[in-house]
């Protein structure tokens, strides 16, 4: 499954790119599995996603919890807790 990933703030810094298209293995079904897969894929992934509890995510523009399924997702945004205001 092809999935667009977008990174923000220090997640983007550590990944070295603002977005990319990944070909997802069939068994990666939810956000938690996606973070584990990214952390194990390469060194920049290990650096960005070593602490998944520090990562927030949005699927197609909607904030989602870690158990959210990826089925039918077009874009997943991954980022640290927000700090606006």
């Amino acid at each position, binding site marked *: 499954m092809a999935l667009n990933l*977008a990174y*923000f*703030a*220090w997640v983007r*810094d550590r990944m070295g790119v603002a977005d990319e298209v990944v070909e997802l293995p069939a068994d990666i079904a939810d956000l938690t599995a996606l973070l584990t897969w990214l952390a194990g894929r390469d060194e920049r992934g290990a650096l960005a996603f070593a602490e998944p509890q520090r990562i927030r995510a*949005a699927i197609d*523009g909607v*904030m989602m919890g870690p158990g959210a399924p990826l089925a039918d997702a077009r874009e997943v*945004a991954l*980022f*640290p*807790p*927000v*700090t*606006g*205001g």
Partner: protein
Amino acid sequence: MIRVAVQPAAIDVGAEFDLHDAGGHGASASFIGRVRGDGDLTELFLEHHPAMTEAGLGDLAHAAADRWQLAALTLIHRVGAMAPGDTIVLVLASSPHRSGALAACEFLIDRLKTDVMLWKRETFADGRVAWVEARAGDEVRAERWNQ
């Protein structure tokens, strides 16, 4: 009237007050957040998500306007590079009586710190660059509004 904006341009507080106050509302509350120059900070950069940041602010604005029956609401967040003293965020809420205007203003500033896709990056005089960490207290303040 609800006005929401995410903009790289400087926030013109006086002009926004004039625009907001055209209705001559009974009670108006405001909150202005500015860049502080603590610890030799030279630049504050606000990163945003082009679509989701404005959508997030819009959702909060409509939630507040409905909950407190506001007569007018202005919610403007600056993004990009800012210097100490610059206005980061402006919240302006008006209603016939004070309680709604004050509560909406506080709700919006609390919730936009936890619910809207914005990230602060600080640059200091010695060249150090650091992303601001979310504060646990912000989550606590934001959560009060769900009770």
